């Protein structure tokens, strides 16, 4: 495979200026001009649909398809929500995009809004992203001044768009699309029951499209370079599996954990975990070896060292028992780390972030934390592992017991950890070892 030329990080790697002028001189807003001048919104949707772009936020839903769910000929306002509430642990690709190349993102937002005929776009940025917010705000201001936002954009009559930044108050659940919408409306971020889906009834009870930052950034390049170019990158659909739409396009991989060189790299979809660690992450630190890998954010579960050759596309992690690609944030855990401690941290995160709406998730995450904390204190029992596995299995939208997917994300790391590292847990329980208290070991609060 030929050396891949970065697309999304193209300007960032060159350390180009985030200003509008610099972006324009690098060919920015060319796609927007092209679309506004030559294409109808429907054609943009068709192009995106043809490109096979799948949402980069975690679930991997085909973006073009999502856009077609909007009610046809809807009179009222249609809203565009851009999900920049990047709260999956170990994930930071959106931050890079917003901080370093805000106009690339903004162009994607304007293009997407054009495609879905949205007149208002909300950019929901998590509160912790101060520099990103400022960078985006600056870009938006520049765009308004340049006539790229506001009324009759680029002289096209009726193409109006206002972009507002909404800073979230900080909750993992705000990254869930209906939770985000609720939060945007000023309510408690409790995910809504579906149906109705946001595309039918979303923010302020109007049709709403929720897209990830990286997704809309991809849209810019798809419109610019065409669907065929996009399809040439990545892994084609598995012909044996009619339900696999394929994994196309470049992807920003976040590498973190026990590696020598953590960071974001842009690679075509389908790169293996081993390649990411060894080639792009500089190998495991301190000369140690890999014990486990989280392939795409905490909620995707764990991979063992034997599964490192799994390709990271939308279908790959699922084949080894993980939930999916997620945000493609690879976290490496070295062989000196106790899985009990890792799981304890995982459980603490999800116990803290469960919104508390659905009983199975609210009580399940709390129970799992209590059990893991007890195991860590050396008071575990063998049957606790069975309970953990069972609880991990029974919560989430997959068995149908919760409204949103947070519970799946909470259950997956627990059950993959127990299934794949059961021997370690059992020997820990047998030894009756007492864990070294972590600084924040406020067990069960």
């Amino acid at each position, binding site marked *: 495979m030929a050396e891949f030329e970065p697309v999304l990080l193209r300007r960032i790697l060159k350390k180009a200026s985030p200003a509008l002028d610099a972006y324009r001189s690098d060919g920015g807003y060319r796609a927007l001009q092209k679309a506004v001048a030559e294409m109808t919104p429907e054609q943009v949707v068709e192009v995106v649909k043809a490109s096979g772009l799948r949402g980069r936020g975690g679930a991997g839903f085909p973006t073009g398809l999502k856009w077609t769910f909007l009610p046809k000929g809807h009179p009222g306002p249609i809203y565009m929500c851009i999900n920049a509430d990047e709260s999956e642990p170990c994930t930071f690709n959106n931050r890079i995009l917003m901080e370093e190349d805000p106009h690339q993102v903004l162009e994607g937002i304007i293009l997407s809004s054009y495609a879905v005929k949205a007149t208002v776009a909300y950019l929901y940025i998590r509160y912790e992203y101060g520099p990103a917010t400022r960078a985006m705000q600056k870009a938006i201001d520049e765009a308004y001044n340049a006539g790229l936002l506001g009324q009759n954009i680029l002289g096209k009559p009726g193409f109006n768009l206002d972009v507002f930044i909404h800073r979230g108050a900080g909750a993992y659940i705000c990254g869930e699309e209906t939770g985000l919408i609720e939060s945007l409306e000023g309510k408690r971020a409790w995910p809504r*029951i579906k149906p109705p889906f946001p595309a039918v009834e979303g923010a302020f009870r109007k049709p709403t499209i929720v897209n990830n930052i990286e997704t809309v950034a991809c849209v810019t390049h798809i419109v610019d370079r065409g669907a065929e170019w996009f399809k040439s990158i990545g892994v084609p659909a598995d012909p044996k599996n009619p339900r696999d739409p394929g994994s196309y396009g470049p992807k920003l991989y976040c590498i973190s954990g026990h590696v020598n060189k953590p960071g974001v790299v842009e690679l075509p979809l389908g790169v293996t975990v081993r390649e990411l660690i060894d080639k792009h992450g500089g190998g495991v630190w301190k000369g140690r070896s890999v014990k486990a890998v989280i392939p795409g954010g905490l909620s995707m579960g764990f991979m063992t060292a034997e599964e490192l050759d799994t390709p990271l596309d939308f279908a790959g992690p699922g084949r080894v028992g993980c939930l999916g690609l997620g945000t493609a944030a690879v976290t490496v855990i070295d062989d000196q780390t106790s899985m009990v401690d890792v799981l304890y941290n995982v459980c603490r995160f999800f116990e*803290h972030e469960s919104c*508390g709406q*659905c009983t*199975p998730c609210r*009580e399940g*995450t709390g129970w799992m934390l209590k059990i893991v904390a007890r195991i860590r204190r050396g008071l575990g029992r063998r049957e606790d592992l069975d309970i953990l596995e069972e609880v991990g299995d*029974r919560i989430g939208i997959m068995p*149908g*017991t919760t409204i949103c997917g947070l519970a799946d994300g909470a259950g997956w790391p627990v059950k993959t950890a127990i299934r794949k590292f059961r021997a370690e847990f059992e020997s820990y329980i047998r030894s009756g070892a007492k864990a070294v208290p972590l600084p924040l070991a406020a067990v069960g609060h």
Partner: protein
Amino acid sequence: MATVYVNDKPVEIGEARLNAIEAAQRAGVFIPHYCWHPALTVVASCRMCLVEVGELKDDGTVQMQPKVVPGCQTPVKHNMVIVTGEYGQHQPNEPIPTPLNYPANYGTPGQRAKKAQADTLEGLLLNHPLDCPVCDKAGECKLQDFSYQYGRSTSRMIDEKNTPPNKPYISSKITLFTDRCIMCTRCVRFTREYSGQGELTVLQRGEHAEIDIFPGEPLENKLSLNVVDLCPVGALGSKDFLYKQRVWYLKSTDSVCPDCSTGCSIHLDTNKDIVYRLRPRENPRAQGWFMCDEGRLGYRYLNSKERLMRPLAGPRGQLGPKTWREIIPALRRDLADRAGRSPDQVVAILSPWLTCEEAFLLARYIKGLAPTATLALGPVPIRGEDDTYPKDRRGRPMQPVRFTIRAEKCPNRRGVEEVLRHFQGEVIPFDRVRDRFTAGQVNVAWVTIGASPDRTGWDEESARAVAQAGLLIVQDLFAGVLTQAAQYVLPSCGFSEKEGTFVNHAGLAQGIRRATNPPQEARAEGQVYLDLMGVTGLFQAASVRRELAATIPFFAPLAAGMDPLGIRLGQVPEPVA
């Protein structure tokens, strides 16, 4: 016509827009639920009503969805198949329906739903304290019931439970046992959607989520106590009822709240002749699901030790206790004597707190004594204006109105008026006869009050005017200006102690039933009238109601008996000329 299959049993739902819980209910299958309430929005968060759904295809096969879905959030449509955790259980007398053609890989129908429900209950009980012995809800607690029916017998959790502190400050009328809360958020939704002011909210996240108020803004609206009924567990407790009785001692009687002319259907919970609490009874024809706090807490006078307990008689100011056996003939003699001498000067004042039957009997008795006697409607207590809900944050009423507390604070003005209209062609309000009292033109006055002491409608001036009547007979619950001036004081019964019919503001006739025995010698008004007429036997509301229906056309729909939800009475007939 749409057909839904619940546990193989076909149910015709017609054009109704139902969810799976309601559709199953029509099939006689109960789907347990906590967060869902017909009056509130659906949140589908308790995850107790999980069912398996599918679709019956035209070729007779069934396609089932792979996951369980919450029944409250699943609207049913034609050919929908619903399988609940109770699949395979049938009523003893019911024919067993033919099983549908489930797919081969589906497994045992109902197993997944059953397990999901058991898992949910296990989750709910993880942090729920096992303090049923001290919990007032024990005995009518949905968590108890469902755990017994659908849950496991033991807990697998050995870790410490979360014990958030109690919050007695959330309202002057309500206390919150935070640790018992199962986060169904019914109370929160009620305050937001029904009463409107949204005093309650959820704090914290995950398993530490708690119900609370906003600082310094307690839950004090006039519908607040409904959250206690809504709470499926013992988290929200009425301070009025707290620790008074265990619910299994209580005897529940269907009745009607008399405190305003809305006429909310209620359950009257009593034990050993003491009324302990009033609960709203679901009645779409009357008020819906709820009732106001004023009515709910307005029962206390019934248990009062200050009530009139025995009949009194004697010259003015020298009343002495008498037995009914003595007083009835004396009264009859006195009345016949005076009414015979001056039949025009007989006035009976019928309280709007009388039941229709009592008003009918009294009117007939007085008219029988003196056909030219005047029958007047007693003072009607009106306080302020109709109070509608929901209200917004600032307390302003909002549309659409979902609940109204009426300004007219009596239960049966409408019914008494119809009786009066029948007997003398028009309704003479009290104000029109007051002058006759002050002018000394009344020889005999029969005054009925029988109202809650804070809503009799009588002011002191009117009472003093009426006190000038030559012979004053007063039927009331409590002593007052009128009873002091009377020659005959007949202790009457509160609404929990008698039976009869109330007609609310909209013409809905509802039956009240006897739940407690009157204190000591107090005797229901209807019984006194029968005794005076010389009719032997006990007062039976049903038979008087039949007579009433046969005599007065307005009440004709009552001839067939009383419906538990009440009977809407027709148009008001033209006054007889």
